[in-house]
């Protein structure tokens, strides 16, 4: 056997990233941080409220400048229960993640869920305590089923 083909050379890719939230993302995260609420961007032509918001309507390519508040109560569209982390190691406790849709908004949010849920359950967005918010998506703690 030709041993030369068994040789391996190791390496990595030594770069890291810093992403800006962007114009729409900035507004979205600041509304969560400062006001503890969700906002969507409204396209009045297509009559859609995009959540998360964006500065353009993908359907008509209008520039979007109007933001509307979305009530922080939604419905579980789909969910999954994770047993492992992103490195494939077992989590100490299973974690539930759900895609939640909100009435009057086009789109939805993916986040952690406290406790168990089923599709169709009504959930509330639980925000972190105001003094602890940093302008990150983690200023949302989790979704919580409304009893």
């Amino acid at each position: 056997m030709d041993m030369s083909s068994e040789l391996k050379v190791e390496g990595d890719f030594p770069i890291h990233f810093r992403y800006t939230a962007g114009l729409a993302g900035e507004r979205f995260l600041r509304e969560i941080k400062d006001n503890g609420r969700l906002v969507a961007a409204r396209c009045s032509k297509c009559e859609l409220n995009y959540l998360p918001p964006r500065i353009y309507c993908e359907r008509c390519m209008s520039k979007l400048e109007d933001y509307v508040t979305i009530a922080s109560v939604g419905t579980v569209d789909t969910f999954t229960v994770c047993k492992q982390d992103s490195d494939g190691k077992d989590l100490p406790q299973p974690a539930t993640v759900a895609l939640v849709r909100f009435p009057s908004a086009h789109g939805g949010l993916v986040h952690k869920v406290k406790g168990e849920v089923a599709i169709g359950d009504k959930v509330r967005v639980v925000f972190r305590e105001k003094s602890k918010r940093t302008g990150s998506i983690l200023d949302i703690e989790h979704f919580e089923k409304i009893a």
Partner: protein
Amino acid sequence: MFVKKRVAVVGAGLTKFVRRAQETGKELAFEAVRQALDSCNMRIQDIDSVALGSAPDAFDGVHMKGEYLLDGAGAWRKPYSRNFVGGGTGVFSPIHGWFHVASGLYDTCLVVAEEKMSSCLPHPQAAFLTIFDNMIERQLGPNLIWIFALEMQRYMHRHKIPKEQIAQVAVKNKRNALDHPSAQIARAVTLQDILDSEVLAWPVQRLDISPVSDGAAAVILASEDVARRITDSPVWIDGVGWNLDTTYWTNRDLYFPRYVANAARMAYEMAGISNPRKQIDFAEPYDPFDYKELHHMEGLLLCRKGEAPKLTAEGVTERDGRLPICPSGGLLGVGNPIAAAGLMKICELFWQLRGEAGKRQVAGDPRTAVAQAWGDLMQIGTVVVMRS
């Protein structure tokens, strides 16, 4: 070579090129697309297909950058694809779009190019580390600048070109860029400024290099069947060419980019150009470094090998010269968000050939022009010839 439908550029849009933009890549793409649509009163519904070019995913740090940019690029539920050929991307993108229309498949194609390099740390050029062979080159501790320095040195040596003649290109382009609204930090520099600037990897000095940037550009292509309904002055893409050389770059003589000449011949033949020196009115060759403009002028067969520095020294390549080169200000002057920078040159051809380049307008009545880009491991030449 048989082309089914003649293809025109009917609209164009360009964002500012800035060192670090607040906008996400999607938002930059949207802004360029919005401008392009507005420039010719088209709606996104009038666009049949979308072709987008963007350089490595590693700059923006997102997976599948083409798909990521799609909705900002107006491609929601449209036939869409992304191309990437390194630095050649910006001029390959209109070729990629051209296929859609020249084939008769679609009447219109929106071409978009975007780059957000500022997300990549410690510096975007670190994302190019993988250009070097992973098994027998990276171990030497290379830096992207080596590629340019080694090519520049060979070119200078073969033709005995003094550094001053090369630096003159940067002086010209940075001055031209003062008249370009998208130029990020347009600032005239003197020859001495360049010669005094920090030596990074001799013969490359800091002011020989174009600025890293974020930005986006867009053009709208239309078939001859519909172009004149959209605009009174369509600008025709009459020739396209692309050609690549081997990755074994250390086995090539770097003084002349043969693959650029091959791409140029392909585009000139399609456009019916037999004497580019006489028949091309002005050119936008790719100028990420000052020596590259000269290297590419020769690759584009606009002058003899080794003659480009002399033409520059004689003022032939100034905006009011016999053969204006980079009247836009090029990458050196306007900025270098890789893919968007190449498409910026297509925008320049479009505006110049319609007489809409304002203070940058070249003298005479230009009818025929060529734009060219070039990529990464000195491998690709992408060439587009346009006519009014």
